């Protein structure tokens, strides 16, 4: 099982790395993250800020989650189903769970690799700007580690959603748009629930689930070094659910 998974995983990773689309996505990702960091630095230099520039990078985690995860995952199953290579793969002793897990692991590693590359910006700032090296706020190690831990724990859910959407269709475009919409709903669900609870007396009970779905709050907590089990449960259970359903869809629609 492990050998089969590793063979599939390295194959997936290789396919991602030989695809020109991956480099286009990486370039846009780094351009956007670089811009976010530059704007945070600009803001910090001109005014007093509540956030460290490095924390700001992770506060806007929703930007890559919303745009880049659909881009990275939309072709995973949709393109293979369109080409017929998924069916050919499933005639070998490889099961749908191994295929799903290998695609998930490859997309996760790539996404985390992009984030690791984005961390170059705070380091560059720290070591190249005159006087910045002395200012610990530019390179807040604890906020960087906390932020990266948040991205690492939240990404499985969004990647799971992307893979599920990709497994449901043969069109990459449809998969991309669907996963964008679902991730947007997951990221903003708490706002909708808060609004409902605020506006309807009978729906006050929605505050509790809204708090549980408050992804922004989790990101802030992680960046400040506060980690509890709620976000881990939220993202972990969501990821397991979406990946499990994806494997079932792959098996039934090959």
């Amino acid at each position, binding site marked *: 099982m492990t050998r089969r998974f590793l063979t599939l995983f390295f*194959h997936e990773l290789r396919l991602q790395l030989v695809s020109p689309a991956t480099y286009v996505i990486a370039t846009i990702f780094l351009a956007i993250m670089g811009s976010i960091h530059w704007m945070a630095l600009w803001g910090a230099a001109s005014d007093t800020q509540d956030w460290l520039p490095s924390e700001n990078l992770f506060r806007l985690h929703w930007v890559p989650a919303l745009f880049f995860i659909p881009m990275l995952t939309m072709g995973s199953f949709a393109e293979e189903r369109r080409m*017929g290579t998924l069916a*050919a793969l*499933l*005639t070998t*002793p490889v099961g749908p769970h191994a295929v799903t897990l290998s695609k998930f692991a490859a997309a996760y590693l790539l996404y985390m690799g992009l984030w690791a590359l984005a961390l170059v910006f705070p380091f560059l700032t720290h070591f190249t700007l005159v006087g910045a090296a002395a200012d610990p706020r530019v390179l807040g190690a604890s906020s960087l580690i906390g932020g990266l831990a948040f991205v690492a724990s939240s990404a499985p859910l969004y990647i799971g959603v992307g893979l599920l959407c990709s497994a449901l269709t043969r069109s990459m475009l449809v998969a991309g748009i669907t996963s964008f919409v679902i991730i947007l709903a997951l990221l903003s669900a708490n706002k909708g629930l808060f609004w409902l609870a605020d506006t309807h007396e009978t729906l006050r009970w929605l505050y509790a689930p809204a708090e549980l779905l408050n992804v922004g709050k989790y990101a802030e907590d992680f960046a400040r070094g506060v980690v509890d089990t709620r976000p881990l449960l939220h993202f972990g259970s969501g990821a397991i659910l979406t990946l499990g359903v994806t494997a079932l869809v792959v098996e039934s629609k090959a």
Partner: protein
Amino acid sequence: MSDNTAAPQAAASEPSPAIEAVSLSKSFGAFKAVSEVSFSVKRGEIVGFLGPNGAGKSTTMRILSGLTPADCGTARLCGVSVPARPDLAKRHLGYMPENNPLPEELRVIEYLTWRARIKEVPPARVRERVEAVMEACDLARTARRKLIGTLSKGFRQRVGIADALLAEPDAVILDEPTIGLDPHQILGIRDLIRSLRGKMAVLISSHILAEIEQVCDRVIIINGGRIVGQGDKESLRREFFPGRVFSVVCAADAAAVARRLGEFEIGVIVTEVAPPSPQGVRTLRVQLPEGAPLGDTLLEKLIAIPDARLREVSEERASLEDIFVAATRRSRDIVSAEIGV
């Protein structure tokens, strides 16, 4: 007593068929794609799977390869149930799907090496097996390092077949392996498939009847989701074209020949195929009933007809195409009768 015990012992020692379909049925909504399909393919046997478009060939093959679950019935590979133990059953299978999908961005050797690994070829044998199938499929010298996306249709088909043979499976299923190939490429693939005889069970679907006729030991004909005929060519010929048919070129007319042959056999039908030539020579078709001994002495009887001036007597044997047409037409007639059309 000894006879009674010998049969079960022989059955127990006989290996299970490499490919076995038992009462497979599959519907897509109201459309019944496959209905009560049963057949088996022994190890070392090459069997052709024939049928018109939409007959249920690909659906049956997909059920056998574990891609599509059957509504009822059982598919087995080397005695292992495909739906119950898919991982184990697929270890016995080499499958080339219709249209032969391949990843365009990989090189031939990279693709085959990867496929060998996921098919659990022992790591020490991966290189040896990849070289062996590339050699067998004539890929080693010409296409080894080419990107699959740049290969011609013929070479892509070869890559698909090489992939199916990679893990030396007991059962190989090839769905339209020669579709879109030129005659030279078809000859190459045909020789390759022939070379598998005695080594593995091969089930091939094809529309090219001549190809099936030349390559396969046995034929299964499916139409409207049902098996309408199966067996070797001789048994199918006996089933769909009972009796014997001769072409006779002579000066005697059909009535004279029928009269003469009627003295020896009841039920002989003689028809004139072509009008007489200026020299008065006619081409006649003589149909003898099944099991008629007259066939062996026909020449002798015809020579005895006065002024027959016999030129030629040859037996007409139904081709696979004739058998295929007869089998599919008969099944269509049965279905029409059932639904009262």
